[in-house]
């Protein structure tokens, strides 16, 4: 082998190393090592409420808190539970996949609703006078109704008469 050939070979090898390092370095610098789905939050960790102004905003955060609370009880993510509760078929698949019966699910959803009321009270979105009876009410409701509240918190908060009876007028005074 000629000296020129060996030199060319060495240049080729060094050039290959440099080209590879430049490419990988550039991709890593551009975020290549962290380009992956964002991690979802642990539902057992508190999720602070922003400052809700309207009934819609309160309902929005109420739903999130309820899902967090129920998911924490069941040991699943809030996202998995939200998809599961969206339809009866989804709920059945979820129960089968995680080995959960109706009783356990109902207990978890009720616990989620209690957490939502607690969070709403803590955020100043619900006065203690209303939060107390609401908390009592959701602790004994059937599963179907509990899921309906999670899915339609705005309807629940806006029309709580069926749960609170005379307290409805009080709610109307306090809620935006």
């Amino acid at each position, binding site marked *: 082998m000629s000296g020129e*050939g060996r030199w060319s070979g060495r240049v080729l090898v060094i050039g290959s190393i440099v080209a590879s390092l430049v490419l990988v370095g550039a991709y890593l610098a551009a975020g290549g090592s962290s*380009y992956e789905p*964002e991690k979802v939050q642990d539902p057992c960790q508190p999720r602070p409420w922003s400052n809700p102004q309207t009934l819609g905003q309160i309902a929005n955060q109420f739903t999130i808190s309820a899902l967090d609370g129920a998911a924490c009880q069941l040991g699943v993510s809030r996202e998995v539970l939200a998809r599961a*509760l969206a339809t009866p078929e989804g709920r059945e698949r979820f129960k089968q996949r995680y080995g959960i019966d109706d009783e356990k699910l109902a207990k978890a959803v009720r616990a989620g609703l209690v957490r939502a009321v607690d969070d709403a009270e803590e955020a100043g979105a619900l006065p203690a006078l209303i939060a107390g009876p609401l908390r009592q009410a959701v602790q004994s409701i059937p599963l179907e109704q509990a899921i309906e509240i999670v899915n339609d918190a705005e309807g629940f908060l806006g029309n709580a008469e069926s749960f609170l009876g005379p307290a409805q007028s009080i709610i109307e005074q306090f809620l935006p």
Partner: protein
Amino acid sequence: METSARPRVAALALAVGVVLADSSIVVLALPEIYRELDTSITGVTWVLISFNLVIALAAVPAALIARRVGPGRTAAVGLAIFAGAGLACGLADDLSTLIVARCVQALGGAAAVTAALELLPATVGSERRAATVWAAAGATGAALGPAVGGILTELVSWQSIFFIQVPVALAAAVPILSVARHEAATGVLEAEVRRTGRPHLWANLALAMVSAAIAAALFLLVLLLIEGWRLSPIEAALVVTVMPLAAILGSRMAERVGDSRSRAAAGAILVSGGLAGLAFLPKATIALTIPPQILVGIGLALVLSALTETALHGRSPQAIHGGWTISSRHAGVVIGLLALTPIFTADIDQQRHDAIDAGTAVILDSPINPLLKLDLAQKVSDQLETEKGKVPTIEPAFEPKPSDPGERAEVEQLQGELQDQLDRGATHAFSTSFILAALLGLIALFPIGLSRRVDL
């Protein structure tokens, strides 16, 4: 070369090209086969693995048979088997039949390819020239395979990939028949076994490792483009054409450097660098796959030619040592696919769940009406069930769009954010496999380093 020999050289080159194209031609059709035959990713990879496995096992015995019964006969019969089995592949309506037909096709292909190397020296005038024509035909076939397969899959069907091979293989067999008619069986098998000597261990070992890395690069990239980023087979074919184009550039570079060990080392480093680049893609954008593909393409041209040369250098008969290189390369492909398939299959599943969860989180945390967001969550859930085990198409979950312009804009933004999470998941799912493939390429540097000092 005599003018009369040209059709035969063309036929032999065509035979080698069409057979070696077959080890990669189905890559772009795999997602289509996967959907149509309703199988799993692991199952569909066997359409590729079975062909390469049988070629790896049959190449050396086929070379010995070619020496014994005559290379013309072996090549002609091999091509006939290849064509017949190709027809069976196209007619297969279940995965098992397809895989069995692929195995038979590989047997015929192994006979044709190794016999072609035995026929070429007499046709082109020298063993060196024969090895060059043989290697170039194989490289061209393997490089063009994915693009041809992608175009045929989209424009016609995945079955057409196999149907089109039938007339091509038969056309290649016709000029070879005249050789077959005039040759006598040599009966040199036992003498050949004694005279052949051992294959070049280190060069063939390095070939296997590098081939595993290259097969992984091609297979994983195609799956990422079609299954992860949802490109059509033609679009994916156009994207992966960068690799063979870069390989042409690599061949030119290879001609300028005489030292085969340096070429092999540089090639292995570039293949590994390109694979590492694919492992760390910073965004799900086609343009970002081009620089890594260029490195892999140049690298494969450098390393495969250098190692094949080293493996054949000073060894005779070439058909048998050529059989060893074919065997090593295809064994490498099999090892690469077998080792990496379970890893990326599990990763795809995990990333799909992570991406859907991240996308659902985006929907839940959005300021849109709670009823609308739960409706979207429900549709995403339904879509997941419809496309079980795959990265879902999310557009249907966002249709029909709300009529209110404000809500519509919010929903469109959500769709974009969910798509971003899916793209992240699909891309990240391949990272570990690309890194492992890159490591295989780097490990090949050890046998490459030993390939001249310890010449077994």
